[in-house]
């Protein structure tokens, strides 16, 4: 177990350092930092002083270590375009993205699970077939197209919901701004969450349906029926509970996907979150912002995967490898 943890930890650190190296190269070689800071009209002496002050005369390795130190202490540089510290920008936009992702996931679960259970229990009905066909829409249409169609229907033709922005937000302590406490904020949240959550919802629905059908065929369910338990008890207390375990794993693993697709949804709805920020940073060649985002993404995903792997190792002894799982003789 110890060896496994060490191996995974080592790999995680390697991934993060590689990402940091890529960012470091990005920052050093995109344009001239001295030029960006001093402008065109600086004299040669001023440039030399700046270069020494920024540490650009030092060997590359020392510079990289300095960069790592900076990142670890929270100084992620200053954005070229916004002229504000990158860390500040990222923190300001984070609540928007988190609210959107969580709402989307919640919507996907709250709609997907009941639909999955319902289509599993009423297998051959027309409604159930219709729902399954409609779910193909979620898979076939790309996310941005779903967003555009929803905007057309609900904002342009029906004028029920706003098409862009976050609505009025309220700041609640610690720098977190939320749109959940205002009417316009909630209204603005509906379409983006629906767009983001639609794909996840169809996935969850199909998964729950498949697992339920699988569980409903097992012997202990048959035994429960033979014993005369009520249908609701069988379906919910026994079948659904057992069907839910793989579903929870998939939901956890899908968070990364939700985060990636939130970038698209934020662009369609002009939602002021991290995704829109990174798209703008690419369009404006804002290297510090892009580099910081890269490092944070690499760190975030590496940590999530480490956590998931460790969890599996705790739960399933076979993953740890080694002598813990030696084949036993039949005797």
């Amino acid at each position, binding site marked *: 177990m110890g060896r496994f943890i060490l191996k995974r930890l080592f*790999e995680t650190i390697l*991934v993060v350092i590689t990402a940091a190296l*890529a960012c470091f190269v*990005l920052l050093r*070689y*995109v344009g001239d930092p001295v030029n960006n800071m001093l402008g065109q009209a600086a004299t040669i002496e001023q440039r030399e002083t700046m270069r020494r002050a920024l540490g650009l005369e030092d060997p590359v390795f020392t510079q990289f270590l300095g960069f790592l130190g900076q990142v670890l202490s929270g100084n992620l540089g200053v954005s070229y375009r916004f002229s504000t510290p990158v860390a500040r920008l990222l923190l300001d936009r984070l609540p928007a993205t988190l609210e959107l992702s969580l709402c989307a996931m919640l919507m996907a679960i709250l709609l997907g699970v009941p639909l999955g259970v319902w289509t599993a229990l009423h297998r051959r009905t027309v409604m159930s077939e219709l729902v399954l066909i409609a779910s193909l829409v979620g898979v*076939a*249409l*790309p*996310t*941005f*197209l779903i967003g*555009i*169609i929803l*905007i*057309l229907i609900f*904002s*342009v033709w029906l004028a029920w919901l706003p*098409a862009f922005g976050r609505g009025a937000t309220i700041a609640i302590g610690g720098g977190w701004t939320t749109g959940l406490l205002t009417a316009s904020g909630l209204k603005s949240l509906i379409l983006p969450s629906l767009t983001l959550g639609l794909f996840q919802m169809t996935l969850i629905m199909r998964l729950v349906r498949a697992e339920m059908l699988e569980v409903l065929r097992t012997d202990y369910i048959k035994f429960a029926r033979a014993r005369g338990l009520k249908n609701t008890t069988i379906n919910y207390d026994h079948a659904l509970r057992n069907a839910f375990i793989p579903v929870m794993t998939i939901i956890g693993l899908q968070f*990364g*996907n939700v*985060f*990636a*697709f939130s*970038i*698209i949804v934020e*662009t*369609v709805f002009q939602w002021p979150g991290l995704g829109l920020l*990174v*798209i703008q*940073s*690419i*369009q404006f*060649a*804002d*290297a510090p912002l*892009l580099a910081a985002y*890269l490092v944070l*993404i690499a760190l975030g*995903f*590496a940590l*999530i*995967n480490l956590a998931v792997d460790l969890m599996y190792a705790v739960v399933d002894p076979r993953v740890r490898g080694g002598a813990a799982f030696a084949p036993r003789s039949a005797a």
Partner: protein
Amino acid sequence: MLAALVAFSIIVIAVGADLIAPFDSNNPASANVVDARLPPGSTALTGGHYIFGTDPQGRDMLSAIIYGLRTSLLVGFGSVALAAYAGTILGLLSGYRGGLLDALVMRIADVQLSFPTILMALLIDGVTRTVLPRETHDILAIPVLIAAISASYWVQYARTIRGLVLVEREKEYVLAAKVTGVSPLRIIMTHIWPNVMGPMLVIATVNLALAILTEATLSFLGIGLPPTKPSLGSLIRIGNEYLLSGDWWISIFPGATLVALSLSVNLFGDWLRDALNPKLVDT
């Protein structure tokens, strides 16, 4: 089979764009700004009809879609070809050789699989664009896009093919060839590769649909193809800005084409997988 017909007819239309399109999208003179944002079915100033309407620059939507299909398919096929090439070679080598190369490639593959593919393509494309000087953006846009998309999708090929190679190389005819002294390269090319080709084709077809969608997504976000080389994604992007004024045709027609294309390619891939299946069953 209907799917295959649709897919192939789309490809033919795209390739024959110059002959079929009613207006020449590449010729700026054909875009009449006076005709900008006309709804579908309107008549052009110079005669002829705008069957799908016009975009904000006065370009005919139908022609723009046909030319855009061509670019989208080019990027799609290009990235699938590159990913298949790189992934297959890596899969063959790491499966046959094993050892350090195998461990290294599989580790990188595992790490990369933990990232969503869209995010990978987005970041690779974004970083490359940021690093390149601004003048070369337009020229290098297509190769960079192809490289970014293939870099995110090569892993599937490598893993699947490595698994198949691991099975094949223990078989008796391979061992016999080794014993007879056939060089490893010949063994890989003449014995192992033909047996591995089938699954690779199936993955490639499914991947084509994904690659086309990824390219459309990146172009929609504005970090794929430049406005001078329209693709379905960038057409939808242009339409996005005019949605709120009710000009729905600028986004919906390219979108419908995109969905039709990806659905037909997907269904074709399913059919292909079923058709090749009996040959894949091991005795």
